């Protein structure tokens, strides 16, 4: 029981990072972006490439950090991956979403995002192959936190959780205490009115993609660190991330963060009641339950 709870929190932190980016994009650009989870894949593969590059350039970087399987090279790669993924997100917006936005409606955007997701997935498959890849071949053994009740945690997961929480806190500080954060909230509230107040909407959209892409990249790397990397990683995480976004309420960053943990915990605890074959249904059930009980999500507000 306690093990499932802890596992849920650890998995949830990754979902939260993904959901925060998604909720911002969905709220500002007003469309369900089904390609968002693919940014996690881009981030994960990007870090894989740079991890290799750094190790080749300067072998001491290949040493692991403390008890983790994470190397210094990979730590650096996370930062580079966040940058590149953010850049890819902007590029995708310029190439696809911006054009569709100016011509088509909300539904066209949704379909375009499906197309983008498929393209990214298949390009990654072409470039890196369909087989699973790993940052490190070594298996890091879990640490026994308590014997009764038995509680096992992998050091990598603790790192992912701490790093994810840190990123969320930084984001919170930026949004709550800077002019940029204020502007962002203004755009979310009412794009037209915010423009009247002198906010550059296009610049805001780019900033949103940067945040969304960066967070997704971090989530992708953390996922790869605790699981494995493959081209369908984004597709597998899409539903839990959407569930987290909807539970939290579209547009609510804090809601998305909480939603991620909630979905993670619920999926893990579900195994105590449901046979394991049914566990993929849990995110769906959560979405349904939330939509019936509180259609705007826990932290969401009704949109005018």
């Amino acid at each position, binding site marked *: 029981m306690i*093990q*499932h709870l802890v*596992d*849920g929190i*650890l*998995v949830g932190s990754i979902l939260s990072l993904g959901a925060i980016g998604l909720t911002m994009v969905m709220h500002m650009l007003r469309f369900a972006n089904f390609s968002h989870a693919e940014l996690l894949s881009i981030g994960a593969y990007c870090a894989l490439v740079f991890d290799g590059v750094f190790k080749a350039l300067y072998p001491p970087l290949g040493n692991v950090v403390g008890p983790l399987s994470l190397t210094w090279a990979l730590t650096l790669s996370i930062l580079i991956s966040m940058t590149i993924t953010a850049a890819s997100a902007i590029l995708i917006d310029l190439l696809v979403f911006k054009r569709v936005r100016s011509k088509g409606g909300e539904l066209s955007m949704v379909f375009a995002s499906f197309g983008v997701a498929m393209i990214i997935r298949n390009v990654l498959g072409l470039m890196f192959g369909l*087989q*699973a890849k*790993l940052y490190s*071949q*070594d*298996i*890091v*053994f*879990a640490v*026994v936190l308590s014997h009764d009740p038995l509680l*096992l945690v*992998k050091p990598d997961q603790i790192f992912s959780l701490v790093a994810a929480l840190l990123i969320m806190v930084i984001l919170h500080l930026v949004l709550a205490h800077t002019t940029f954060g204020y502007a962002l909230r203004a755009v979310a509230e009412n794009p037209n009115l915010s423009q009247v107040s002198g906010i550059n909407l296009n610049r805001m959209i780019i900033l949103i993609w940067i945040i969304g892409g960066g967070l997704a990249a971090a989530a992708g790397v953390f*996922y790869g660190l*605790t*699981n*494995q990397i*493959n081209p*369908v990683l984004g*597709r*597998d*995480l899409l539903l*839990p991330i959407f569930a987290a976004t909807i539970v939290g309420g579209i547009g609510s960053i804090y809601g998305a963060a909480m939603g991620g943990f909630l979905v993670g915990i619920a*999926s*893990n605890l579900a*195994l105590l009641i449901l*046979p*394991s*074959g049914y*566990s*993929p249904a849990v995110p769906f059930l959560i979405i349904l339950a939330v939509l019936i009980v509180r259609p705007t999500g826990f932290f969401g507000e009704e949109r005018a």
Partner: protein
Amino acid sequence: MNKHIKHAALTVGLAIGISAYGSAAFAQDCTTKIGAVLPTSVDWGKPIAATAQYVVDQINEAGGVAGCQIEMVLRDSQVDPKVGVDAAKALVDLDGVQVLIGAVSSGVSMPILTSVTVPAGVMQMSCCSSSTAFTGLAQEGKTRGLWFRTFATSGVQAAVGAMVARDRGHKSVAILYKNDDWGQDIGKLIAADFESVGIEVTASVALNDGQASYRAEVTEALKGQPEALYLALYPKEGTAAVREWISLGGTQNMIVANSLKSDEFRDNVGLQYLGNTVGTDTASPRSESASAFVEQYTAHFGGAPSGPGLANSYDATMIALLAMEAAGKDADGAQIASMVSKVTDPSGTPITADADGFKQAREVLAGGGSVFYQGATGNVRFDANGDVSAPAVTWGFSDAGTKELSFISLTDVDAFMASLK
């Protein structure tokens, strides 16, 4: 003018056609059709169909079946149940076949069996369907003895897995299986087999395709602290689950199904953790008749039979034709099906899997005797449900990939499986 030439040409053509027909009829006065529904539109399906046709050609050269030439009407199943059923319906209703070869996938063979061949009383012989759902159907009497297959069921592999666990002295085992038809089938079978050799199954957990994390499932399987782990998974989720399992301190005593015989799995888990892993697989028999088939096939097709189900396809077609020979001319599906035991009779005259063997069988059968077909997959023997057994191997991971650990002969497999029931 033009019209006249056309007319004349047509008449001449017709005359030639009739005379050609006449000369063929003179050599052999009848043609019997058999049907085949095989996935010829996929690359691995073509050789299976070619092998079946090869058998028919051989038998026709040897004088045909029951005095008639055999014509195999081949239709593509496209690995699609709907297409397969349509094809089978056309063969049975329009061509009037009494024997149907096919299909390959269990998912295609099953609807053909239940909605076409059994209602029409046509015998169906599959080269390659492995699902134990057919066994269940046969036990309920719903196949009416018309169903046979020359491919061993998942039961063989499950039994060998239990045998390995027993021989290694494990007292308790947890099972992780893939949540699809194959995985559910083998997961259920192995659980029953473990129980019957006195091994406790601490947990049996289904793993779904494409899940973000298998942590919860693995934790669930770990709970009972089993001495060994049985895996019926594919490499992708297998790697993820086993890495979790090992990192959480699970036992490295693992028994795995043939689906994990992959370099991806070995490399991503790491050879250092797989020292105590034993895999199972069904195998070709190490018999003379099996090597004779390989030689014969290589000589005819210019390459060794490397694809799946080729030896099985050869035997399926040959046994069907032998049964037709035994049943005599104009026999119906049920009569032909009832003759299968007569041509695979262990106390009968052994015959080889080629044209000569067929000629010999013809004489023996004409004299009222029975024959024992020594096929490409060994001494084929169907049980009451139309299932065959197969020899098995156990294997382990090595630097070069996998290495065979032991060969378990058909007799040993059969004996062990009988001891389970």
